[in-house]
């Protein structure tokens, strides 16, 4: 094992896969010579050249659908959309093209592309630069959605995503960019399958399901609940949003009898709604308490740090809501 930063895990995943397969290309705004706004793509332009690493104009709709056309004709594009909020500009390419092309054309093509974007709050970036929109894509057949919380998961899932023959959308956590974590020494063929959740902490009293930037916070909550309140929470990091590893969640809830989903995204029609629905559809009797969603209030994400701190689920707010369940 060695230590690697989250954004460098992304960089390494792309580099290794570009070295392995010359059909992998990188496309996006400022991913080229400048190396990206978080330095996430640095070095790749020099290593792979201007044909395989392309700085685009500001035209997310255009270059995402372009990538679909490229994927259907033999390339394996990796596309960057800087902020998760800007997916609004490329929905057609993802939803009406990438997700449906294979089905619509009778299976004649595959669309192996990966789109990654930095999502979520915590940087006082304001209402148009802080959203979490992964739930939209989980609603769409034909797409796969991942959201890794650690450098290791990012590396393993991203490499799998690049090798996957379907379109995969990867929501990275903005606040995680600079965080460090263990990764294997040799990662060349380090792959984590899509659709497998990770039980971060085992416990018998409550199942807390979460993903992306909320994972490290929820882990602190679990530690605190244990040492301060004697509550043993089981923490599940979904990692994949679609496919969703509901088996792991159900197994856990069957043991704990209690379910809480913590996410930074809005609550209605979301991953949290889906997890809860799937569990009670399976068997509503395994719940001994009412399930709980911990999400931001139903407002846009505010700029001012003191408001953003109230808006986003925090260790304190999560803890106090969970403790109420145990009163």
């Amino acid at each position, binding site marked *: 094992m060695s230590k690697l930063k989250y954004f460098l895990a992304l960089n390494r995943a792309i580099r290794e896969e570009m070295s392995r397969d010359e059909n992998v*290309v990188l496309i996006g705004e400022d991913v080229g010579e400048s190396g990206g706004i978080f330095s996430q793509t640095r070095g790749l332009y020099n290593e792979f050249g201007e*044909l*395989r690493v*392309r700085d*685009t*104009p500001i*035209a997310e*709709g*255009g*270059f995402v*659908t*372009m*990538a*679909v*056309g*490229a*994927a*259907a*004709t*033999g*390339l394996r594009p990796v596309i960057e959309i800087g902020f998760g909020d800007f997916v609004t500009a490329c929905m*057609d*390419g993802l939803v*009406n*093209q990438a997700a449906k*092309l*294979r*089905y*619509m*054309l*009778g*299976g*004649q*093509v*595959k*669309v*192996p592309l990966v789109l990654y974007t930095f999502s979520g709050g915590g940087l006082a970036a304001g209402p148009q630069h802080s959203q979490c929109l992964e739930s939209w894509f989980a609603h769409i*057949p*034909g797409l*796969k959605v991942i959201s890794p919380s650690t450098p290791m998961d990012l590396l393993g899932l991203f490499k799998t995503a690049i090798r*996957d*023959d*379907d379109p995969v959308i990867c929501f990275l956590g903005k606040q995680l960019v600079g965080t460090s974590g263990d990764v294997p020494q040799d990662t060349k063929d380090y792959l984590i399958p899509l*659709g497998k959740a990770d039980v971060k902490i085992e416990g018998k009293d409550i199942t807390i399901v979460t993903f992306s930037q909320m994972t490290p916070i929820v882990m602190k909550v679990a530690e605190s609940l244990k040492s301060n309140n004697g509550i043993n929470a089981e923490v599940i990091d979904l990692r994949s949003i679609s*496919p969703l590893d509901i088996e792991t969640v159900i197994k856990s809830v069957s043991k704990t009898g209690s379910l809480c989903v913590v996410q930074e995204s809005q609550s209605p029609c979301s991953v949290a709604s889906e997890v809860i629905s799937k569990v009670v559809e399976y068997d509503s009797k395994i719940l001994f308490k009412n399930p709980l969603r911990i999400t931001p209030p139903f407002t846009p994400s505010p700029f001012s740090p003191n408001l953003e701190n109230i808006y986003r689920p925090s260790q304190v707010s999560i803890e106090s809501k969970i403790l109420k369940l145990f009163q």
Partner: protein
Amino acid sequence: MTKIDSTLAKTLLEKLWEVRLFEENTSRLYKEGVLPGFVHLSLGQEACAVGACQALQESDFITSTHRGHGHCIAKGADLNRMMSELYGKETGYSKGRGGSMHIADVNAGILGANGIVGQSTTLAIGAALSFQTKKLDNVVLAFFGEGASGSGAVHEAMNIAGIWKLPVIFFCESNKYAELSPFDVHVPIKNISDRSKGYGFKGITIDGNNLVDVYSNVLEAVKLARNGNGPTLIEAKTNRWHGHYEGDPQKYKPSSELDEKNWDDPIIKFQDFIKKEKIISETEIDKIKEIVDKKIIEAIKFAEQSKNPSAEILLEDVYASDF
């Protein structure tokens, strides 16, 4: 002017008739209630499809629109599988899952018709990107309409293609209407081709009903693109004889345009040219139509005898790998 020899003339005429008769029969079958869904026909625009695709090689690609039958036929799609798709049958190109708006034959270089206006151009630059990145000398031709020219997708595609000098031809079938509204609802200038200057490449407006014009101009654009000199925008002025969709009452058209006598027929135009230049004989001309007639009847029979897609086909091909 490009030389048209007798072999080429026969091919071109055969294709023209294939499009014409495929569309006429589709119109009839739709009216008879045989075909489900919506169909958008390209009657009157045959010279665009045939002229443009003839200028391409088999390994070149096209992308197409909701009005794509002509393009697909011209690029070499199989009439049987096309007709079967219109019927929603299992032997159709999309196994019945796509219908008229989604016919594709990737082996023939048809990346598919598409139901989202404008996206033919962005998908096209994607295929062009593949070719450029892999250092292949293939080109891509994107069909789109004058209505589509108002969409941001088309602008973004042309801008990117201009910057990267992608091997792509933007072929605008400027057919006077987009759905129910005329050209000037969509375009504030006379010729859309004027926009190419804004992207640093060549643009030209041509008579889209003149097959030879279309063919020779696309040939030139293909040469540029194949040699790494980037895109061309070709605006072909043409006419959509039928409604936007079959069944469209076309109240928005002046009656003169609805009168067949006033239609500028690209097939007659080409046949007149052939006759004048004495490239092939009149009997040969007639024979071509007869042959095509049979092919279409064959295609309809094929479609009718094909099975409806089974329930498994509903669930197939959503993903290429595990989900």
